[in-house]
């Protein structure tokens, strides 16, 4: 399906869509219905609305209707205001955006204004022409994918020529494009231009949210506007993460309302009572409704439902919010998680998730930029079999001081090459080695880096990936300085000689291809290619010179935890080039789905028979404190998984260096692990055959040394005493093939996922390499699906966003790779090592606080309400409330709210230092030791006991005395309030203040409710006039 957008630039297009995006939900008219609708979807609110309705029925109303409506309206108002304020923020943002978009829909003319250097593109535009030569257009896409480097977009030459040469004649053109979709990196369309059909792809599109840079103006045709733009299509569904504790909340609510079935018993009691006692002739007999005990019992049932409804902790939802927010603020206030160099404190972006931090069972971490610094340094290289590297022993003083090599001959050098290879420089300057020259030319040409000349005589490189920047920078230091890029040309200064290279074709890098190539015609058609070792090595020409030595160097580099890239060249015969380029143009013109596959095939044809030039090795240093943090988290019982796109050797070495793996473990790999899985799962042999023959076999596993055979493993895992082997360190390495639809495979064969997880549960840590972003989130899903544990993902780049969103808790590291991860994360940190404090201190405390809070809330409300059951025995099961109605209304809201809230904010069992010193303390979180049903039923039992004491002690005292109902009511109410005091274990000045406030509130409110003035105004509502104190004083006198 295609949408037709007629292009005729003489007429403004009528009926075009409004470009205003409504990111806010409410309008003054819709706010009330919408917010009520949203809030009554919560079971507790609906239940209480029902209670209010029932209380309005006089026959069953055991407490006045306004008693429940006070807490209910408080809850609804607070929640509604919170939503409204969130919405106001969104509204404000929408207004700002709207101000900029008030441009005509047809041509968006970005007039250059010196005060605004960058211009935000506000709709998805088809670039028609720009101020730059060849209608090139430099953009930054930081808001879309977080990449801060400059990229370029280019208009079709047809539109460029037409618009720049002042068109005289009108031409009707038609743009055909896809239906609006959320695919950011692809676009397919056609421009029918003067009978020709020109192809459009994502290169010609300026997406909404991109920023125009270094470009004075650009003309574009709006293709998608408003909510149809790709970026808004993309951020459509934001799943709200619900916490485990909220689930427990709901279960508690349901459980407690189940307990109100007790009222059935009471109703039966009431029926019996009315038939036995009250149907006799006597004073109260007339009160039996219609004289029918069954009907009375039926009414009493509902009355008791109402009377026991305060046991349902409605205020739980509302009073858990302020502590949660405060606990999130504590995370941001923590000095120990403040990163001085970047002036960045930690940030809890999602305030409702902090108790999840105390229950994390699985930590899934990205490697690059998360465990490592992502500050890449060109360390070593191997050209033509010769390894150039830093020689630690022979370094002179200059190198130690940060001037690694004498490069003063190079005007473009600006330091920053952490490698010492005087031999290489000599070779290069002496023009001795053509291979080295080609190697550096390849580095200077084969990239997508943009050069910016801000000040001075050296260019500043803007690169999509830090690797490219490091490589191009290294080439510059060694004499091959990349100077500038135009549409088809690259300018490079080779040892001071400026040369212009024509760019015939650029075979782009994708995570699937994992290589890129450029074609240039200088001195015979040459293809320079760089890419991952696997893909390059399988495309080499036969008996390539130095191959063995380079491969050995590759291993060497990988062992030293360096990131490697292979660089290769190919001389392309003219004839094959012409044929190839023709096919390329043809297949590019295709609009069908298999265009991509075809292009892929074509690229593949070109990138073969390569001659290996060398290998680059880039170092990415570990962040500070990473090994210690991982060790600590493992001690705390977390299973640390590292998911990386690196190759196995690099991943393993990083694993060793950050103490994820022990040196004395052997890795479980390939077939063996699959065998282990098969043994566990008792798969048939035929199944494995199909799997092993299939090119998309899923896992490459290797067994560790502790298990001599999979059988022992199985027997161990099935034995109940897993403790003994749990003590052994067992690490497994999992390697995955590059395979995009891994998740699908698990869907098709769910038992494989289960088996894998069963195996992985035995391991302390799992290392997954060669995973794509999509696979990362598939792994997170797998863990979520097969274990009940809370998963936490941590990552820093746009490629981790998926995984961060998928996990229960997502942590974003604010690193060099832009703000994408942080934008989508629930928590933002600056350093990996802050994770230990976030989890072991804040998480543990939060979990402890919320579960204690929950239990105490349960205790508080149940012991309060259960008193009515015992009282029922002595009032003929008539659903008479033991408390004054106002006490019921104010009990949860004002008398007991503050101490419990203090508990939820300040409670600490051990200090932060001890939490970090004894990581084992964390283990009770993942096991849910504080919020499991047993603990909840214990506090319920405690509540029952407490209600018994609350009722029967006054009962004994007041039995057969002249003390009236009011006195008993007030006594029990006070006792119930004071029962809350002993919940606090951690007495800060705030807890004491809260307690004082509560107690004084109790006295003040009681006194107020019992005052004569209120009684005068409404005798029916304030029946408890007078105080016991006054009465007793008077009696004694």
């Amino acid at each position: 399906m295609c949408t037709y957008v007629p292009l005729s630039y003489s007429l403004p297009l009528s009926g075009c869509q409004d470009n205003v995006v409504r990111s806010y939900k409410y309008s003054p008219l819709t706010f009330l219905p919408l917010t009520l609708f949203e809030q009554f979807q919560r079971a507790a609110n609906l239940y209480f609305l029902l209670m209010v309705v029932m209380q309005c029925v006089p026959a069953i109303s055991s407490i006045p209707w306004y008693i429940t409506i006070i807490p209910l309206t408080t809850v609804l108002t607070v929640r509604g205001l919170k939503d409204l304020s969130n919405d106001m923020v969104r509204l404000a943002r929408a207004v700002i955006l709207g101000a900029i978009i008030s441009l005509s829909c047809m041509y968006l003319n970005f007039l250059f204004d010196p005060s605004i250097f960058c211009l935000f593109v506000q709709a998805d535009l088809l670039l028609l022409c720009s101020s730059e030569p060849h209608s090139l257009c430099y953009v930054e896409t930081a808001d879309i994918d977080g990449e801060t480097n400059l990229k370029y977009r280019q208009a079709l030459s047809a539109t460029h020529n037409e618009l720049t040469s002042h068109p005289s004649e009108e031409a009707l053109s038609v743009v055909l494009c896809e239906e609006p979709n959320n695919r950011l990196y692809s676009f397919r369309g056609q421009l029918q231009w003067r009978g020709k059909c020109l192809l459009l792809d994502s290169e010609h599109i300026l997406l909404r949210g991109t920023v125009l840079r270094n470009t004075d103006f650009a003309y574009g045709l709006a293709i998608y506007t408003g909510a149809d733009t790709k970026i808004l299509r993309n951020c459509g569904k934001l799943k709200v993460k619900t916490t485990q504790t909220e689930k427990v909340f709901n279960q508690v609510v349901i459980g407690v309302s189940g307990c109100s079935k007790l009222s059935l018993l009471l109703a039966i009691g009431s029926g019996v009572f009315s038939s036995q006692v009250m149907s006799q002739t006597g004073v109260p007999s007339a009160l039996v409704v219609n004289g029918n005990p069954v009907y009375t019992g039926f009414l009493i049932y509902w009355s008791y439902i109402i009377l026991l409804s305060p046991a349902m902790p409605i205020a739980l939802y509302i009073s858990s919010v302020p502590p949660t927010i405060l606990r999130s603020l504590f995370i941001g206030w923590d000095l120990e998680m403040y990163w001085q160099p970047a002036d960045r404190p930690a940030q809890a972006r999602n305030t409702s998730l902090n108790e999840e931090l105390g229950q994390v069972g699985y930590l899934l971490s990205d490697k690059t930029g998360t465990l490592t610094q992502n500050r890449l340094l060109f360390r070593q290289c191997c050209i033509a079999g010769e390894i150039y590297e830093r020689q630690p022993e022979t370094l002179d003083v200059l190198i130690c001081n940060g001037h690694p090599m004498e490069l003063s001959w190079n005007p473009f050098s600006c330091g920053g090459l952490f490698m010492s290879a005087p031999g290489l420089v000599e070779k290069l300057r002496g023009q001795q080695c053509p291979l080295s020259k080609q190697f550096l030319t390849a580095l200077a040409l084969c990239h997508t880096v943009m050069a910016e000349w801000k000040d001075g005589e050296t260019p500043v490189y803007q690169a999509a990936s830090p690797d490219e920047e490091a490589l191009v920078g290294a080439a510059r230091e060694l004499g091959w300085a990349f100077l500038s890029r135009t549409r088809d040309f690259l300018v490079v200064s080779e040892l001071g000689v400026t040369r212009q290279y024509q760019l015939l074709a650029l075979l782009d890098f994708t995570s699937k291809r994992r290589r890129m190539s450029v074609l240039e015609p200088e001195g015979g058609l040459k293809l320079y290619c760089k890419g991952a070792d696997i893909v390059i090595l399988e495309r080499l020409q036969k008996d390539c010179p130095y191959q063995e030595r380079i491969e050995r160097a590759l291993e060497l580099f990988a062992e030293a935890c360096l990131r490697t890239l292979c660089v290769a060249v190919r001389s392309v015969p003219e004839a094959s080039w012409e044929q190839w380029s023709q096919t390329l143009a043809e297949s590019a013109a295709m609009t069908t789905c298999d265009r991509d596959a075809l292009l892929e095939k074509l690229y593949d044809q070109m990138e073969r028979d390569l001659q290996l030039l060398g290998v680059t090795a880039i170092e990415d240093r570990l962040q500070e404190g990473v090994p210690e943090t991982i060790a600590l988290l493992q001690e705390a019982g977390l299973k640390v998984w590292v998911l990386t796109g690196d190759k196995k050797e690099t991943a393993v070495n990083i694993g060793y260096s950050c103490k994820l793996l022990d040196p004395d473990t052997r890795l479980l790999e390939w077939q063996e692990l699959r065998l282990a899985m098969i043994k566990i799962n008792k798969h048939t042999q035929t199944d494995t055959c199909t799997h092993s023959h299939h090119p998309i076999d899923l896992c490459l596993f290797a067994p560790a040394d502790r298990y001599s055979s999979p059988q022992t493993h199985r027997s161990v895992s099935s034995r109940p005493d897993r403790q003994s082997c749990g003590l052994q360190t067992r690490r497994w390495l999992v390697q995955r093939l590059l395979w995009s639809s891994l998740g699908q495979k698990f869907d098709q064969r769910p038992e494989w996922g289960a088996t894998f997880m069963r195996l992985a549960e035995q391991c302390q840590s799992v290392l997954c390499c060669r995973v794509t972003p999509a696979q990362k989130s598939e792994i997170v899903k797998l863990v979520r699906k097969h274990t009940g544990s809370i998963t936490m993902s941590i990552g820093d780049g746009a490629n981790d966003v998926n995984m961060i969103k998928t996990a229960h808790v997502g942590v974003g590291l604010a690193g060099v790779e832009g703000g994408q991860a942080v934008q989508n994360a629930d928590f933002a940190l600056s350093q990996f090592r802050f994770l230990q404090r976030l989890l072991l201190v804040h998480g543990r405390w939060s979990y402890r606080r919320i579960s204690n809070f929950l239990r105490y809330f349960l205790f508080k409300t149940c012991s309060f309400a259960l008193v009515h059951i015992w009282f029922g025995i002595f009032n003929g099961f008539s659903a008479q409330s033991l408390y004054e109605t106002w006490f019921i209304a104010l009990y949860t809201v004002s008398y007991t709210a503050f101490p419990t809230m203090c508990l939820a904010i300040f409670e600490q069992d051990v200090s932060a230092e001890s939490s970090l010193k004894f990581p084992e303390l964390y283990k009770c979180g993942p096991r849910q030791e504080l919020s499991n049903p047993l603990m909840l039923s214990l506090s319920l039992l405690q509540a029952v006991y407490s209600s018994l004491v609350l009722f029967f002690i006054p009962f004994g005292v007041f039995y057969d005395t002249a003390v009236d109902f009011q006195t008993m009511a007030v006594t029990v109410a006070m006792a119930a309030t004071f029962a809350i005091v002993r919940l606090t274990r951690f007495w800060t000045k705030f807890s004491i203040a809260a307690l004082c406030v509560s107690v004084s509130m109790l006295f003040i409110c009681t006194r107020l409710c019992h005052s004569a003035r209120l009684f005068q105004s409404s005798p029916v509502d304030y029946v408890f006039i007078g105080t016991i104190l006054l009465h007793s004083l008077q009696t004694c006198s």
Partner: protein
Amino acid sequence: MMASSYNAKEEDGHHSGATSHGGAGAVKSKKPDNTAFKQQRLPAWQPILTAGTVLPAFFVIGLIFIPIGIGLYVTSNNIKEFEVDYTGVDVDSPCYTCAMNFSWNNTLPCTCSVDFTLEQPFESNVFMYYGLSNFYQNHRRYVKSRDDSQLNGDRSALTNPSKECEPYRTSEGVPIAPCGAIANSLFNDTLDLFHIDSNGSRNAINLVKKGIAWWTDKHVKFRNPGGNSNITLAFQGTAKPVNWRKPVFELDPSDPENNGFINEDFIVWMRTAALPTFRKLYRIIQKKSSTTPTLPSGKYTLEITYNYPVLSFDGRKRMILSTISWMGGKNPFLGIAYITVGSICFFLGVVLLIIHHKYDTRNNSADIPN
């Protein structure tokens, strides 16, 4: 120790910030404040349950509770109390005929008298109660069946009582004052007490009927419509409660301050009891002189005008004479409860102490630092 290391760190940060940013002072740093609240280092008292704290706590609670309990128990025992059940269930009890022949339509009140002997003299003021058993004055429908506005003298409520009063709201179309089941079931036995001299003559004991209600009830909560003057007129157009023998404005014709809604017997009745067995203050016998006891030991006669039926719901009626102390009436329960709790604590303390001494092998240096 913590604080010092913290300060050092902060200083470090400050220095590096100053050197790296140059004029960093102008830019507001996002560095969090180093306050006790924000760093969650509030000084706090955190009771930790160890043998060193729990054992003394048990003993202290035991040692405090036991004397209190003993004190309460002794005080309660010193209170003199005498109780007479005059329901008339047994055939040989004096009120049997009255109880059996009861009918609401009786125009002539049935009277009976019960003789009893006080073994010990009652010193100081004596409070006279009537006690009812198995009377569910706390039943919800009963408790609700009143109109506080009417009782507060509201004229509109007088002629149009609240719906809560049903079925005692109107009588043949005329609004009932006071309406509702509580008022309708007003305790209307009359109790008189006589002391029998050694020579056999009966001396009526002066029973004070004022000052038995709560002050706020008498002066705020209950009010006659249109003040206390011409009370008969004020209640015109209302009917008496079904079970009453006389209208509300004739409850105490002798004293306008004690008539109508502000009749103290009525007020005491209207203040509902918490439990089905209860007593209510009926009269006060004031001490006459410091030398003679209020009620000397000897023979007494209680004369009852038997108006109130309780046998239909298996209830009992009692008359109670009691002195009071600072803790109220006679009630051994609280003292016993205190003694029990105190003893249990003490006993547990001893048991735990033995266990602690026998099995404690832990050395204290392994304590987790707080």
